[in-house]
């Protein structure tokens, strides 16, 4: 049995807007899965269904053999954390220390242990020197790292990232992505909703959604092998493929798969004339 099993799930916000339509897949423990799809493809809805934030209208999701439903949700949440897009919307405490403490207090961790746990996880995300900082004095990337520390301190099996890096600058993005890869190495199951092609290429497994339906689930190399197919559903494709496509439209076929190779190929074409 897989850690997460999604079977024929369906969700509609109203009769005219079906967000998730008959989607099924399973995810193995300790894997890093990216979920891609254009805006409105149902990515966030799906993530919220897995996290039990939206009710499953049809079908079922099981996590570790336990069905995601009202009855089991408290149990499931102990194993699952979610990091949202906007770093400003998820800071609860008045300092970094308080923010990480919040979850621990809810989990009724003994007071004498909280300080040690807070320090351990602040160190993990590289914020040991920032424990007494207030949120307004932190960068977006730092705020997201606090959110991640707070979740890691709860020792979940699964962490869902809902476009957690999309509001960050390149430096912040890089920091958070490194932290996410590190989580995967620590056997935490990561599900990341993203538009970041580089991140997708680093993942074990990629789920492509289109108009609420499962379009593809495969290794990232396989998913990007057919650029035309992805472009049809309005997805970003790697730069190298964009180059190939632009030249193909001008009746110039390029075989190489890297920029250097393509520049050489073009130059050879030029010399022939």
């Amino acid at each position, binding site marked *: 049995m897989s850690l997460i099993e999604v079977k024929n799930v369906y969700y509609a916000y109203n009769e005219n807007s079906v967000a998730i339509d008959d989607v099924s897949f399973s995810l193995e423990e300790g894997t890093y899965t990216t979920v891609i799809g254009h*805006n409105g493809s149902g990515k966030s809805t799906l993530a919220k269904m897995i996290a039990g934030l939206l009710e499953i209208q049809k079908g079922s999701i099981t996590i570790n053999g336990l069905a995601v439903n009202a009855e089991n949700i408290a149990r499931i949440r102990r194993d699952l954390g979610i990091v949202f897009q906007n770093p400003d919307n998820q800071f609860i405490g008045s300092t970094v220390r308080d923010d990480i403490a919040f979850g621990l207090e809810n989990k009724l961790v003994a007071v004498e242990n909280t300080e040690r746990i807070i320090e351990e996880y602040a160190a993990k995300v590289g914020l040991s020197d920032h424990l007494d900082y207030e949120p307004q004095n932190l960068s977006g990337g730092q705020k997201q790292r606090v959110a991640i520390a707070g979740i890691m301190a709860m020792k979940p099996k699964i962490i869902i990232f809902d476009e957690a890096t999309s509001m960050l600058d390149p430096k*912040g993005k890089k920091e958070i992505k490194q932290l996410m890869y590190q989580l995967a190495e620590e056997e935490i199951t990561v599900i990341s909703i993203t538009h970041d092609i580089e991140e997708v290429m680093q993942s074990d497994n990629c789920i492509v959604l289109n108009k609420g339906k499962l379009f593809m689930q495969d290794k990232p190399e396989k998913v990007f092998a057919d650029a035309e197919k992805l472009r049809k559903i309005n997805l970003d494709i790697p730069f190298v493929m964009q180059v190939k496509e632009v030249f193909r439209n001008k009746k110039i076929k390029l075989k190489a798969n890297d920029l250097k190779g393509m520049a050489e190929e073009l130059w050879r074409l030029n010399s022939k004339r």
Partner: protein
Amino acid sequence: MAIKFKALSYIYNKDMPYAHKALDHIDLEITEGVITAIIGETGSGKSTLVEHLNALLLPSEGSLEILDYELAADKKVRFLKPLRKDVGLVFQFSEYQLFEETILKDVTFGPLNFGYSPEEATQRAKDALALLNIPEELYEKSPLEISGGQKRRVAIAGIIACDPKIIVLDEPTAGLDPKGAKQLIELFIDMNRTLHKTVILVTHDNEMVYNYADETVLLHQGKVVYHGPTLKLFNDKKMTEEYRLLEPQIVTFRNLLIEKGFKLTDEARTLDKLAEEIRKQLK
């Protein structure tokens, strides 16, 4: 008319233990009628800089001349409304600002507030919504019922409807899918090319900067360290290394082609134009 920062500094939490100088003696004249990108790491002062443009923040020291207005430290501002009509500021994640019952009402709010008659305001709102490809059947819907991309466009329509002379965009495409992002950016390019609006673009997306911005301002720790043509900045190895600018992939490709012996003009800054120039040389 001008957009001229004169020795402008801005200090957050002034006279407090946490005081922080976000802008440090900025001397900068932004060229009118062109597209200027403002780039720099988080915390370099980009947002603080643009928030001065319509007096959301007032200088702690120095002054800012913008259009016919002047903002200066310790000087009372008497012209907030006309300034804010002339300088449209589209915030990051502007869709969070929608508040009216219907989409049409939301977009009409701005022009109505700036003194257009109700008929005129409604007309302006409808024109702006059409420009942003919001279909008429959505006009009476609640802004909360539409998709994220549509919400963003409705929020932007609200700014466009006020007919600003200067449009300031803070990360306008963050979180949008590639097609939505491209459509939106092309709309602003078009407003610049056909209506000669001054467009100021704050972004982390160097690919977008290279493709579209005529000029670039690079901020570093609250200071302007570069202001000039975008291409010149990204061709300057010393600058890109010193400030750790991510090289746009199109620049990497351009340089590889030039090394081989191809000739590329400064116009070849989008993939389409670049491929077109290469194709011509192959004939």
